[in-house]
């Protein structure tokens, strides 16, 4: 479904992504982990062209993301994204945050968009927060609204960019629970995270990336119990034994 072929990306002289080859299948939950600055967020952001690639090819289904002639707005309708900082629209209520894209991109009627929004607010466990502004919600609630906002577009793929990194520790669980449910329902998910428990439990595959290179692609259990690469071993020992 998502396919990276020899993808490279440079910021000036800095080689951020080095010869990335990766296939992500429909229904798969792929977890990208690695030290900070390793390029994992950049890799994720290339998928919906928030970052452009310098060379190589990147396709989603039959759409070439690297091709300037591809109508990226059309492709983005099918890819939801959840950000570290939530990025809810502060001047709109939770409900308006969720209905905005369905109404203005998919041209749904207000009633239909509202119905969908209420359904997903229920699904993420905050049905009574529809009329709240983001500033009135906790971090965990905001991130769940952000997930509902992504889901309301009925996407084929969901991208998560460190969705729990900006949350208070006690709110991490409620967000991860929603993500687990989505994974079980067969959503295609690409998740950049430092939540190793989540990676191990929910991931179908772990991608370990460092200095812009994919160093290891492995089954989660295999990866956490028996990492092959020295750099992965070091990384795991640092984050698991603190």
């Amino acid at each position, binding site marked *: 479904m998502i396919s990276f072929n020899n993808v490279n990306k440079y910021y000036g002289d800095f080689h951020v992504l080095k010869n990335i080859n990766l296939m992500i299948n429909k229904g798969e939950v792929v977890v990208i982990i690695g030290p900070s600055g390793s390029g994992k967020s950049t890799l994720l952001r290339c998928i*919906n062209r*928030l970052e452009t690639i310098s060379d190589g090819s990147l396709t989603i289904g039959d759409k070439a993301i690297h091709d300037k002639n591809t109508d990226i*707005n*059309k492709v*983005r*309708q099918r*890819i*939801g*994204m959840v*950000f570290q*900082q939530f*990025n*809810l*629209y*502060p*001047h709109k209520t939770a409900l308006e945050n969720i209905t*905005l*894209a369905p109404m*203005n*991109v*998919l041209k749904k009627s207000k009633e239909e968009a509202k119905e969908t929004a209420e359904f997903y607010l229920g699904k993420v466990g905050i049905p009574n927060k529809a009329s709240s*502004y*983001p*500033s009135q919600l906790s971090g965990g609630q905001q991130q769940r609204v*952000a997930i509902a*906002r*992504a889901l309301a*577009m009925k996407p084929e793929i969901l991208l998560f960019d460190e969705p729990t990194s900006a949350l208070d520790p006690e709110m991490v669980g409620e967000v991860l629970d929603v993500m687990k449910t989505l994974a079980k329902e067969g959503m295609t998910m690409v998740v950049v995270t430092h939540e190793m428990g989540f990676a191990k439990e929910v991931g179908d595959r772990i991608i370990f990336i460092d200095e812009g290179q994919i160093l290891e692609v492995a089954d989660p259990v295999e990866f956490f119990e028996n990492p092959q690469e020295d750099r992965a071993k070091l990384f795991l020992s640092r984050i698991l034994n603190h």
Partner: protein
Amino acid sequence: MLDFSILIDYSDMLWDGFKVTIVASLIALVASFIIGTVVAVMRITPIAPLRWVGTAYVEFFRNIPLVVIAFFFFIGTPAIGIRFSGITAGTIALSIYTSAFIAEAVRSGILSIPKGQMEAARSSGLNYMQTMRMIILPQAIKIVIPPIGNQFINLVKNSSILALISGADLMYQADLISAKTFIVFDVYILVALLYLIITIPLSVGLRYIESRLANTY
């Protein structure tokens, strides 16, 4: 002491001038706000030629005197067969001149919105213009109300350049009255008060809008 009997003798002229000042200011206020916002968006778009035009516009018009722009539209354009009345030429000049300053205020407001807002909206499939209109500008407006308010107040005062191109505004009428009556001091004191009647409520109104917006979210 001050002789305000002129207020009664020449009340018609003053009233006419007052109306012209208000109408010219109001039109220029709306026009400069719209032009300024468009130019601000041009200045930050990813499309380079639009950015260049926007930058050239701002740098040109905010760095030349307003009077020059007013003279251009009053006595310059007839050379190419386009004739404007003093009021029209003055209002156009005011709109263009003020819009360059408003563009800068709006641009800085837009740039102060976290870039995650643009990314979230774009990644949901909204195009650039939809994102600007629905997500970025509504948030930026709140930030730019105070600096824009200053520009609006300047605009009302700057409308006095209409007097130089027979624009029949308040200042123009005051010049006529003082020339006729040889009363200078009193007339201009009175005119100053009449300008305050416009600018003070404008200030208060803008402060009210600012406080209203501050409490919305």
